[in-house]
């Protein structure tokens, strides 16, 4: 199971560089699908997200959002779950193409 526990996950979107193969779920364009790789959140929160279907290895589709793009609805494991951008920024998906720096 790829689950790293980060005790200090805060509301802000962290700025450190990512491994080339990972993209933030928050950056996934509406209508696109990607495979979830890992959840970088405190254990409790990660667990609840997994119970809702955000499991590593499962596919996630970015759907409609509230005006302004936040929060966004994600289709995952047969249901639609809305997440705020600050949360979706801690979920990582496999990139289709490596992101430019």
């Amino acid at each position, binding site marked *: *199971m790829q689950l790293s526990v980060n005790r200090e996950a*805060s*509301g802000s979107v962290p700025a450190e560089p990512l491994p080339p193969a990972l993209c933030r779920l928050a950056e996934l364009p509406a209508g696109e699908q990607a495979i979830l790789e890992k959840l970088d*959140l405190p254990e*409790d*929160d990660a*667990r*609840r*997200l*997994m*119970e*809702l*279907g955000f*499991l*590593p*290895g499962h596919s996630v589709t970015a*759907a*409609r*959002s*509230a*005006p*302004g793009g*936040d*929060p966004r*609805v994600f*289709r995952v*494991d*047969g*249901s*639609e*779950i*809305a*997440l*705020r951008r*600050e*949360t979706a920024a801690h979920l990582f998906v496999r990139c289709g193409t490596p992101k430019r720096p």
Partner: protein
Amino acid sequence: MSDCHGSAALESPPRTGNAPVVAIVGPPNSGKSTLFNRLTGMRQKVANFPGVTVEHHLGRAALPGGGELAIVDLPGVYSLIARSDDERVTHDVLKGLMPGVEKPGAILLILDCTNLGRHLVLAAPVLAIGVPTLVILNMADDLRGRGGQVDAGLIAAQLGAPVALISASKGEGLERVWEFLEKVESGQASVKPRGMELPVLNNVPNCREWAARIGKKGKYRAPVPPIWTRRLDEVFLHPVAGPIVFVLVVLGVFQTIFSGARPIMDALQSAINASGQWVASFLPEGALRSLVADGVWGGVGSVVVFLPQILLLFLFLGILEDSGYLARAALIADRTMARFGLQGKSFIPLLSAYACAVPAIMATRTIENKRDRIATILIAPFMTCSARLPVYTLIIAAFIPNRPLLGPLFGAQAAAMLGLYVLGFAAALGTARVLKSTVLKSSRTPFMLEMPPYRWPTVQSLGLRLVDRGLVFLRRAGTVILLTSLILWALAHLPVVHGHAPQISESIVGTIGHTLEPVIKPLGFNWRIGIGLISSLAAREVIIGTLGTIYGMEGTSHSQSLQAALHHDLTLGGALALLVFFAFAMQCMSTLAVVRRETGSWRWPLIQFSYMWVLAWVCAFATNQLVSIFWT
């Protein structure tokens, strides 16, 4: 206590002899309460969004074979690891830790079979409890309608538990549930060996894989995505159309509540007046006739008039809740909520506070973070509850001319009403901001909200809700309002001087009112309003009954309506100040009681009470002064 919501959890549990208690367990919005209502013939509130049930409810199911079983309905959970207070209720009941509820001896596990893979995950910890369990795959009609399928027998073999495929809302497939309950009652229900071992419970990916394997063995074919939900969301969550629809829905609701209910209310008013005169004509001139005409008809009748409007409000709330639009509204509002330090989960309790603050405060149990929860509890009474609606309607109708604003579809009176709702909401947000940046600071918890598929609200569900709300309203009118009207009438006739009742301003009521006058005069209120404010502590709408009685006894309401009497008695400044006062003041004993219960001490309710009254006085004062300066 004029509790808005009869709370079954506070009553003593039904006696059941030796038969075990049966618990209904399942994920949020899987239909637990719908099934509970089916089995017990009771009417727990149901709606189409997660987290409607936040406490345990006990009921009895009368079995076809003549026996009886105690059933307990529980808040929805995704696992048996509790994160919030409502989930803790489920956890405690299942472990036998809840005072007053026996540890359940059997479980009805209800899962939404349109999303079986994810929902079956909950079967692992529930089956691990080791009591006889019936696994219910609900929403079978939906599954079929969208081209999915499942073999209940094969699933049962894997789980070692009987499986029933049902539709709780349509009542189909319930025979299997009754059959299971009969076995439980006669002690024949047992736990069978499983085809597949249970997974390691605290490993979610592992549990999910186990669920997928069971689904596969059970020939589960997932349904196609709900196409209408997708299409509707294209509109309701469209960046431009979405907010426009949101605003139109709100304006439409207000205009309809205000003017749509008018003709029925007018008819009801005439009927009440006529019946009052008819009854009075049988009574001899004197104290008794005055008691009936002014005390009962004047007091209770003037409140009952608002029944059509209250029902209309609940009809709209019901449609929004049952259709699933509420979850979208929560999504659209989330950014605004976040700006004021509230999390998205606060929005649904706040919306339900438009009906009544009591269930709203209960609904905050779904908020995991303690400080966020207290902040939401403290601001919920600012939301315009249905008890304020009659007061607003009366004063607005008396003082605001009915000019069309946006064509004939949206008038000045509806706008004034909307303004008061916005005022309450703004006070709630402002208070939240202050609380969240001072005493109730907390780190932000992630916002996760499941979007339910849209469903047609059923006529039956809406109808039952209206009947229930109508009865609650009438019961209040028949108890609290009748009682205060009678007490008021009596106090207005004492002390008796030389065998005659005094002039009302010389009576006990008048004396109390006049004593209060120095405090409320700066707000533009006279002593009659002062008496109304005191009696409205029992429940907000009581002020109407009180004014109905007072004006009735002064002989005004026989010749003119309460509305006209009020118009005559108050200045515009005083009237607007009264509206502002009602928007802010905490005048509800039931709310204080439930805040005390949910926060565990008198500290928060006392702070809330003082804060709201001070705010109400100051803002009403400012309103009266400003209007007096600029409007004369």
